[in-house]
């Protein structure tokens, strides 16, 4: 146990945890949106994120991005990366819904069928990206896709450096960008759901689908919308991940998706602000746990905390709100 280290550098570990948790939170929104409206846990959402990281990878390779580009170019690469990743992830999420879930809904399939379909889709994507993509793109991207199932590196867009120091807490440029970008995306989504007409339609379907239809809400359109929105958030997470960690692999989504799902449950699944809180909380807990014990313990700590929190608050920290008190 390294209490002295944790307490002595509490600020530093908190900052590290927040920037880690911000990415969890962005991915968690996809789980929470779909669950809030459909009561479906879209386990394939982790692969929506994975597709986003590959979209960034392919984009940067096609543009011939080198390590440490000048600032102007770096911003351009990041913005283009955001657009491409959001489009790829949003499109993937929408395709999943149209091709897999919608036909099941039309047949009134029981919830278990959706769950198995989601898990199956997730495996299909992982294998597809591990086996087929390298062969398809092998010629175009020899160095990157040379060996399947390996970690694929990406160019460093921004060199991590300390921006400023408060006490003994150093905050880096990358941490700041990740945190601000993630919170900004979430604020945008929160505004969209709570303040716009389409957002009101989403909340209506979440709270009472049949009555929403009686008010003229097209439920199918709302469902497409939430998949796309969740996908866009996962795409943003994919860009931030690529910028911060500089690698991806076909199985990248598995652990991250599981963590993000945990964050969603921790905050109260179906609750957008809960996903933010759950993500940040989980990030902090992991970093604290890794400091107290050892870094290979962080997953153990994360899930023990999840179980303990759910024992006392079974609906998560904030409870469910998108579909509150659904009849």
């Amino acid at each position, binding site marked *: 146990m390294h209490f002295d280290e944790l307490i002595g550098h509490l600020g530093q570990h908190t900052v590290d945890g927040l920037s880690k948790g911000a990415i969890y939170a962005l991915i968690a929104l996809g789980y929470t949106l779909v669950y809030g409206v459909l009561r479906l846990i879209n386990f394939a959402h982790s692969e929506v994120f994975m597709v986003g990281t590959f979209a960034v990878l392919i984009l940067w390779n096609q543009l011939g991005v080198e390590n440490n580009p000048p600032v102007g170019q770096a911003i351009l690469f990041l913005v283009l990366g955001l657009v491409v990743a959001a489009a790829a992830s949003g499109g993937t999420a929408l395709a999943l819904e149209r091709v897999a879930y919608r036909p099941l809904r039309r047949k009134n399939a029981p919830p278990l069928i959706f769950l198995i379909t989601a898990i199956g889709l997730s495996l299909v994507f992982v294998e597809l990206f591990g086996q087929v993509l390298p062969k398809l793109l092998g010629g175009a991207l020899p160095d990157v896709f040379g060996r399947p199932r390996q970690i694929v590196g990406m160019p460093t867009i921004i060199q991590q450096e300390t921006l400023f120091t408060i006490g003994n807490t150093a905050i880096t440029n990358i941490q700041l960008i990740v945190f601000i970008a993630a919170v900004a995306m979430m604020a945008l989504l929160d505004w969209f759901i709570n303040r716009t007409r389409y957002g*009101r339609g989403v909340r*209506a379907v979440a709270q009472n689908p*049949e009555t929403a239809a009686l008010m003229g*809400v097209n439920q199918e359109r709302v469902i497409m919308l939430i998949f796309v929105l969740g996908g866009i958030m996962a795409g943003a997470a994919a860009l931030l991940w690529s910028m911060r960690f500089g690698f991806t692999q076909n199985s990248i989504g598995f652990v991250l998706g599981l963590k993000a799902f945990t964050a969603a449950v921790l905050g109260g699944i179906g609750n957008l602000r809960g996903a933010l809180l759950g993500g940040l909380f989980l990030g902090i807990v992991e970093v604290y746990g890794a400091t107290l014990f050892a870094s290979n313990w962080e997953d153990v700590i994360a899930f023990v905390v999840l179980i303990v929190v759910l024992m006392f608050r079974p609906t998560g920290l904030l409870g469910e709100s998108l579909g509150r008190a659904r009849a």
Partner: protein
Amino acid sequence: MTLLELENVAVTYGRIEALHGISLTVNEGEVVALIGANGAGKTTTMRAISGTRSLASGKITFNGEDISKLRADLRVVRGLCQSPEGRQIFPGMTVMENLDMGAYTRRDSAGIAADLDRVLTLFPRLAERRKQAGGTLSGGEQQMLAVGRALMSRPKLLLLDEPSMGLAPLVIRQIFDIITEINQQGTTILLVEQNAQQALSRAHRGYVLETGRS
């Protein structure tokens, strides 16, 4: 002039036939009551008209158009709006947001504002509780909100499913007074009720539903 016509409408739930071919008409300007015991198929009839249940057979004509296969949300655009059984307020939305939901398909902000004024004049209680969450209202207030919400779509035909359910006699009187007023302002109403006496005293005509037949 006939506004709504049901011809031999049948609805099934799985293998169970809930409606065995009912026919009824509602003329423009009328209040028509559809009464019957529990389980007679009143709510199923309303669902069939609103489009949240599909027909096994038969035909529904609204304003001269065959709407039998039209999606529920498009029927609202055509001028059909329902205040459903059990009120079905959106509990997590404020009174104002619930009313805005009624105008979901509309884009004419001036017309929406005018209808909001009208609804808040009809139901002053709702004006007092604008910012309150729908789920925290009393049963009577929720019923007013459900009727007001449906009116916000400016329907040609207002469908009211059991507006008196679970309310105190005094509140039932109030609700029915307002229903009469809404009709006098020019909205055609199809009313489903278990409270036959109250409903028939307010309606121009009535139909009795006996376990799936009218």
